[in-house]
């Protein structure tokens, strides 16, 4: 009796699935972000952005039913990321992936994703060359290091701050950023008056600060990973009186990231950064985005670039799924559709590069200021359509 019933049920299912208009295929999306420890803000922002997007645009783009599978990468942890990607691809059979975050995780995931032909979104890794050849199904919605590290050099020289001191954290992304900034500075006819590579575990900056003071630069360019280092160096430059004496503090958006800028406090005011997203960006889409995100997440959870990168990954996913309406989900078509695709993001217009899936976007020079009592990054100049190279 039981077998008879199940045969009947199977037959019924079979008839349903041959009728494409009625079928609702489920697309499983793996969300691999860091949800624990000091890097958990990224995962938190990703979740808020995805939730908000699905509230606004429904849960069935192109007639596909979405199912999210979340996993915690715990931070830059390639071993963990590799295991999790393997697990969600082979066991959970995810067809799309948002993440993993961080460059080492992205690199660890690439071979598995390429072999399984699972399209993924890079929403939290900036190293150049991690999308493209090695991972033909990846699309970057974050930014590439040169996008943030180059534009400040010509900007500074144009302001008359020609003598620049460069300070980077002594790890691979720091070296990469240092190289790009120094090249751009040379191109802009600026002068490098000194540079320092500071260790990653480094609670005390005063020895370095004195070196900067001795070199008498007009401005200092900083690249530090978000966290106690980025907070610490800006505060140390302020406490030492260097900022008050007229030294211009510049850096990538990491040093005034919205999630940490309150901890930097008054020291942040006047700091110039290059960034891809500010909640202050003047566009109707962004105003609506900030309003609804804040309504969902609360005032305390501020919006950073990870949230916007996740939001854009959702926008692209929805566009690509709409394009496959009525068909069976096809990962290769999905990735191909995104190449050359252009969307309006809360950060401004972005384009996915035709040749390798990397991102082309505007880069904004911002000054940290108090707006209605809250520290914000106010955009003061735009570099249009900056390449990822």
């Amino acid at each position, binding site marked *: 009796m039981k077998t008879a019933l199940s045969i009947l049920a199977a037959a019924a299912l079979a008839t349903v699935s041959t009728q494409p208009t009625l079928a609702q295929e489920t697309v499983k999306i793996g969300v691999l972000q860091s949800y624990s*420890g*000091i890097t*958990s*803000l990224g995962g938190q922002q990703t979740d808020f952005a995805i939730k908000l997007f699905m509230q606004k645009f429904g849960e069935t783009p192109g007639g596909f039913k979405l199912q999210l599978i979340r996993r915690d990468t715990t931070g830059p942890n390639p071993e963990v990321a590799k295991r999790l990607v393997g697990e969600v691809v082979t066991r959970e059979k995810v067809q799309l992936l948002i993440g993993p975050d961080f460059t080492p995780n992205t690199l660890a995931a690439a071979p598995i994703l390429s072999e399984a032909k699972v399209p993924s979104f890079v929403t939290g890794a900036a190293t150049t060359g991690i999308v493209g050849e090695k991972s033909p199904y990846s699309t970057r919605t974050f930014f590439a290091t040169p996008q943030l590290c180059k534009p400040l050099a010509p900007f500074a020289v144009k302001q008359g701050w020609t003598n620049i001191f460069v300070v980077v954290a*002594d790890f691979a992304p720091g070296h990469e950023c240092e190289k790009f900034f120094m090249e751009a500075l040379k191109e802009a006819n600026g002068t490098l008056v000194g540079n*320092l*590579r*500071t*260790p990653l*575990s*480094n*609670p*005390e900056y*005063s*020895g*370095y600060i*004195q*070196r900067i*003071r*001795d070199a008498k630069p007009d401005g200092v360019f900083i690249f530090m990973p978000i*966290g*106690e280092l980025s*907070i*610490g160096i800006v*505060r140390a430059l302020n*406490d*030492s*009186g260097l900022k008050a004496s007229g030294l211009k503090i510049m850096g990538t958006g990491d040093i005034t990231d919205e*999630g*940490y800028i*309150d*901890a930097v*406090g008054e020291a942040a005011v006047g700091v110039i950064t290059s960034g891809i997203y500010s909640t202050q960006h003047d566009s109707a889409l962004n105003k609506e985005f900030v309003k609804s995100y804040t309504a969902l997440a609360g005032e*305390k959870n501020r919006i950073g670039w990870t949230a916007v990168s996740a939001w854009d990954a959702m926008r692209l996913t929805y566009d690509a799924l709409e394009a496959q309406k009525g068909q069976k989900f096809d990962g290769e078509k999905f990735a191909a559709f995104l190449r050359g695709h252009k969307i309006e993001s809360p950060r401004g217009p972005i384009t996915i590069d035709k040749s390798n899936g990397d991102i082309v976007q505007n880069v904004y020079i911002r000054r940290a200021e108090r707006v209605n009592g809250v520290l914000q990054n106010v955009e003061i100049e735009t570099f249009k359509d900056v390449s990822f190279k």
Partner: protein
Amino acid sequence: MASILTVLFNGVAYGFLLFVMSVGLSVTLGMMNFVNLAQASFSMLGGYILVTAMQGYGLPFLLCLPIVFVLVGVVSVVVERLIFRHFYKTDDLTQVLLTIGLVFMSIAMATYVWGGTYQRFDMPSWIIGQKEIFGLTLETYRIFLVGFGAVMAVALIFGLERTQLGAMVRACVDNRRVAGACGLNTELIFAFTFAIGGGLAGLGGALSANLLGLDPNFPLRYLVYILIVVSVGGMGTITGTLIAALALGIADVLGKYYFPQFGSFIIYLLTVAFMLWRPHGLLGRGA
């Protein structure tokens, strides 16, 4: 010349910072022979109490410091009575495993209560900025740190190393049964010492959080530095801790100034050298 003196002063200030952070552990580890890594968690708690009292209740900074000392002291006694006292007779490794477990628990608890991000410190205006002293531009907070650390060091050296109370504590540690037989209330003395150690750790956290930043990962980030200072200084000697903290602080800042490419490597190099030269620490009494 001015830059050398400024760097030297910053080194001394960093040394006192290391001292206030690690002297709490020096007291419990050295005097009571109890390996309490959770001391770093007491430091973190001190930082969070300072933030809550200052930003939440609007109390002045100087008033917050004694509050931190007392509250963290009380918390540490509670923890001592509930957990630690059962482990006084166990070996070092058990104590390490127990207290590192507590550190991880404290990180989770701090994330739950205060959130995972860094705290904002609104220091009073008199303590921020710089002061001109003998032609040198020095940071006010560092001047305060040097003064506070020096007063604390003198008070502790005389209070715990030169008084009857200090003698009683050391007697309890050296031979608990005999000390008890001589009429000392060993339980009370241990709890009291523990409270002082905890309170000092809290104070260290409160004073350093403004310079080093405060988030739930604080204990793990600075535990290494605390352990270095205590082991270089020698167990159970506050003078040793002070000398070690100053030496390491000055060496670290000078090293970063003159040999920036070696970064913070110098502090470790110096530690290894010290430990080879004096395995029990600078002023350690030996095993």
